[in-house]
């Protein structure tokens, strides 16, 4: 389908502010009377606080006040508290102190005396599952979100469970979750090749470059929060809940966000600290979060200790997969990555029979929250290299084993036998193979140049990428402008505007006459889903489409009222609503908007549909009378889940003497339906590629098991890829086939573009080494050197937090 705006590049309205330094992030705001707070955080991995003596600190001139967990309503365990009297990880906030200046606040913090009672702790899930092993929490060692809400319990496996696992293999005691479909025994019985492999994927930090600083103050009964958040409307009710106020009394400003990658997807507890403290001390409070603090409170991706048994037919078809994942789940409710990982296996490789078992186990490490492709990208790192191994054993190509298992439009997956809205992963493999010139490149595999050897690899990843049921709001003004109100947020993808352009496209508006209204809850923003989960492209094209369709219906009604005939007799174009039979009978959009103001009711926004979210109703009331208001809830059909798939193709040169490697080429291919914004998509594919290189080759948590202390706090320790760690140029391509369940055919993409690159790097390194599979990420240079020289690795197969 031909579009005027969809699929075209544009200059995002927020980009000039980013290149001139005018973009205001949360720490860039100043308020009269502002004071600073510093956090006192836990020095211990797990402890109970018997007493806090802040008298000396509070007596210091210029110290204004203190906030402790006792000032806050109790939180139902195992949910994450705002402040705590039982810290569960080093760096967990215990109290916040406000002072006239930050130096003074820190000095005062040093004067506070806390009586800590150390408690048992662990940084290794298997240690906690072992009989008599330590629990990360006083109330148990297994926690998560079940069908009945958050739970916490104690689970121990038997010594027999551990002993029966086999050397270096994951023990598989009683799981917390399990599901199965098909006949596992029959699947394995028919297999030509069966593998049973144990793997480890690392926990790692998000390390958004902007720490989660926040400014808060109270004015006229409302609480103002300037925060670093990926999302705008969705966090509001949750943050209001943390603060203890009605959502309508929260002013939330999140116009710019310096990176989130999942950890700032919605409201997080730290946002509420300056709000509570400001209320208590009666002054605006700026909470600057340091890089080190961001490591701790900034959360992390859960690592896996897993095992998978897979049976393949001769042609590579996966007949059976039996997956077990032990997830390091951090100190609190954590995240269901392990469940998502199983869904991903079921969809990306469509095994004919599959069983999943998994258990989340608490550790005294930073909280686990979504990180780009939560579950899906870890499992891509684990499974994709094993596909290479199976292909080698079966004597088929690494491309063919992926293609033969790829899903299509008719695929049914997972325990609930879910459908997909569409799937073109095979096409993404084919496109990547063609653009990368795979058939020729693989001939270079193993070529030596001195101590260097060439490897080529490929990989794929998936994430669910779109939801429904949110609201759209746009206003045609009597000046002839279209204001598109979006509550989606500013993750840095420009999709706030790419999706808003669908309203303009639908109304056939010239883009220069449109404005995207966003970034501040006072701007009358609709209820939109958060900017996480790769969903924006799918979800918010739908909301903007239904809002525009509502506006078109109203334009036609107004034309029929003023010019005669029925609404159906009219059409739109050229920013006019005109009679189909006689185009000289028309109202301009500006005229119709003026008439909408005069008519009132639903036309002006004075009345709003009942099915809207209260936030959207309030937003509609806010814009009422300013023009013709298009507002609607997305009730469009959606059958199946909307998937995002991506494939990556990579070439490396591995130095066998040093274990270092250079990535000489990378391309990524997206299956994300219709491409909304080509340059934005390229940014995601390439940026996700960089992030994936970090996931597979560089970044990790390192925790000392003896003391529960981290050795990876800094950016250089963690370690993020620099510009010299990634290829100088990267390629980005798309399948670009429309999804039938979206009005413009779009689906999301942000997450799998990381996982596919990570998998491609693992695949390429293993290829360079002639088929050595590490069953572990990240692959570090010392691991490569050990593998090349046939030495045992310095870590045991199931060890976590390795350096």
């Amino acid at each position, binding site marked *: 389908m031909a579009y005027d705006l969809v699929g075209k590049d544009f*200059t995002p309205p927020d980009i000039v502010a980013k290149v001139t330094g005018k973009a205001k992030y949360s720490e860039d705001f100043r308020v009269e009377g502002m004071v600073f707070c510093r956090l006192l955080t836990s020095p211990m991995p797990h402890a109970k606080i018997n007493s806090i003596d802040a008298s000396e600190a509070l007596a210091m001139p210029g110290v204004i006040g203190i906030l402790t967990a006792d000032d806050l309503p109790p939180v139902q365990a195992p949910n994450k508290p705002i402040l705590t009297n039982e810290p569960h990880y080093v760096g967990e906030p215990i109290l916040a102190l406000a002072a006239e200046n930050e130096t003074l606040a820190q000095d005062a913090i040093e004067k506070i005396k806390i009586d800590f009672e150390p408690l048992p702790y662990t940084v290794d899930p298997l240690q906690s599952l072992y009989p008599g092993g330590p629990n990360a929490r006083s109330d148990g060692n297994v926690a998560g979100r079940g069908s009945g809400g958050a739970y916490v319990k104690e689970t121990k496996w038997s010594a027999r469970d551990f002993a029966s696992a086999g050397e270096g293999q994951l023990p598989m005691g009683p799981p917390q979750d399990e599901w199965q479909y098909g006949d596992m025994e029959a699947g394995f019985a028919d297999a030509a090749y069966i593998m049973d492999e144990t793997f480890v994927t690392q926990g790692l930090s998000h390390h958004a470059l902007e720490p989660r600083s926040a400014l808060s103050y109270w004015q006229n009964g409302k609480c103002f929060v300037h925060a670093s958040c990926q999302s705008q409307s969705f966090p509001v009710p949750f943050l209001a809940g943390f603060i203890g106020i009605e959502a309508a009394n929260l002013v939330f400003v999140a116009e710019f966000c310096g990176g989130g990658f999942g950890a700032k997807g919605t409201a997080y507890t730290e946002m509420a600290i300056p709000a509570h403290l400001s209320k208590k001390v009666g002054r605006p409070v700026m909470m600057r979060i340091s890089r080190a603090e961001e490591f701790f409170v900034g959360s992390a991706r859960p690592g896996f200790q897993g095992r998978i048994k897979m049976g393949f037919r001769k042609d590579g078809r996966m007949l059976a997969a039996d997956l077990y994942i032990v997830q390091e789940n951090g100190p609190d409710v954590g995240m269901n990555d392990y469940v998502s990982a199983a869904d991903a296996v079921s969809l990306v490789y469509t095994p004919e029979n599959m069983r999943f078992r998994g258990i989340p186990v608490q550790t005294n490490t930073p909280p686990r929250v979504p990180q780009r492709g939560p579950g899906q990208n870890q499992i891509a790192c684990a499974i994709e290299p094993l596909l290479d191994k199976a292909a080698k054993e079966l004597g088929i190509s690494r491309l063919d084993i992926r293609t033969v298992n790829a899903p299509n439009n008719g695929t049914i997956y997972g325990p609930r036998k879910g459908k997909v809205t569409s799937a073109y992963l095979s096409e993404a493999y084919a496109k990547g193979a063609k653009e990368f010139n795979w058939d020729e490149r693989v001939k270079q595999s193993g070529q030596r140049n001195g101590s260097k050897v060439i490897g080529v690899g490929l990989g794929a990843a998936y994430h669910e990428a779109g939801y429904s049921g949110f609201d759209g709001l746009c206003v045609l003004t009597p000046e002839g402008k279209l204001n598109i109100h979006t509550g989606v947020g500013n993750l840095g993808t420009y999709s706030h505007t790419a999706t808003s352009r669908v309203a303009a496209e639908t109304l056939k508006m010239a883009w220069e006459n449109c404005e995207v209204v966003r970034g501040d809850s006072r701007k009358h923003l609709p209820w939109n889903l958060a900017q996480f989960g790769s969903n924006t492209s799918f979800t918010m094209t739908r909301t903007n489409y239904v809002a525009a369709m509502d506006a078109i219906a109203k334009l036609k009604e107004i034309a029929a009222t003023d010019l005669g005939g029925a609404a159906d007799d009219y059409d739109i174009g050229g920013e006019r609503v005109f009679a189909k039979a006689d185009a000289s009978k028309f109202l301009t959009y500006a005229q119709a908007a003026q008439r909408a103001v005069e008519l009132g009711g639903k036309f002006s926004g004075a009345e709003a549909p009942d099915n809207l979210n209260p936030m959207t109703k309030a937003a509609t009331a806010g814009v009422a009378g300013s023009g013709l208001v298009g507002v609607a809830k997305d009730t469009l059909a959606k059958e199946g889940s909307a998937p995002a798939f991506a494939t990556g193709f990579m070439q490396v040169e591995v130095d066998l003497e040093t274990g270092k490697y250079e990535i000489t080429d990378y391309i990524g291919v997206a299956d994300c339906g219709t491409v909304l914004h080509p340059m934005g998509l390229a940014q995601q594919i390439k940026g996700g590629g960089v992030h994936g290189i970090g996931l597979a080759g560089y970044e990790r948590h390192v925790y000392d098991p003896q003391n529960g202390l981290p050795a990876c706090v800094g950016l250089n320790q963690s370690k993020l890829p620099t510009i010299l760690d990634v290829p100088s*140029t990267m390629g980005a391509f798309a399948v670009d086939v429309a999804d039938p369940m979206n009005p413009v055919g779009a689906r999301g993409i942000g997450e799998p573009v990381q996982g596919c690159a990570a998998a491609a790097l693992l695949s390429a390194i293993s290829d360079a080494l002639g088929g050595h599979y590490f069953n572990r990420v990240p692959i570090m240079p010392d691991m490569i050197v050990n593998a090349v020289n046939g030495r045992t690795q310095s870590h045991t197969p199931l060890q976590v937090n390795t350096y």
Partner: protein
Amino acid sequence: MTVESFDPATATPASGVSRREIIKSVIASGAVVSAGSILGLSGCSPGETPAAATSAGGVERLISLNVNGKVRRVDVMPQETLANTLRYKLGLTGTKLGCDRGECGACTLLIDDVPVYSCSTLTHNVRGRNVVTIEGLQAADGTLHPVQQAFVEELSPQCGFCTPGQIMSSVALLKSNPSPTRDEVRQALSGNLCRCGAYDHYLNGVMRAAGRV
């Protein structure tokens, strides 16, 4: 209440405003927070707070800085970093603090055309030198610097937080090497982390700008 209306560029002695008036105006606008207000949040343990910073400590001294071609008079503590002087006393928040410990490069600016990390530069050490921040690149008529313009055209930033630093490193490179190779640009930007991974687009932006400066 916020200071969006405050224009630091006009609050200079050069504009004929007395120091007392400047102080009054910035206090009224809230642009300046109290002296010695900002820690060097080094990310180290609290115990490593510089001794000079104790008791909101150190003695402030009034010094002149040349920032973006204008002389700015400002009270500065001995241990104060340039990033914090700019952000909290001169209202120039375009310089970002990503780590405040010399790891990420978000605070990069130019001192006599050389790119430096302003989180790791003491303000007292730049007296008499020419400091250029991201706010100093745009022409008075609003025309973007060629690097800024190229970054817009190449959709170089994602979240934008590292962008001012990437731009300042790029500007420094093009001043000394107006026609760099792509690999020379990589080397020049290697001190600027981008967590969004927008490196390819930044490289494209600098290569595009190279022909225009």
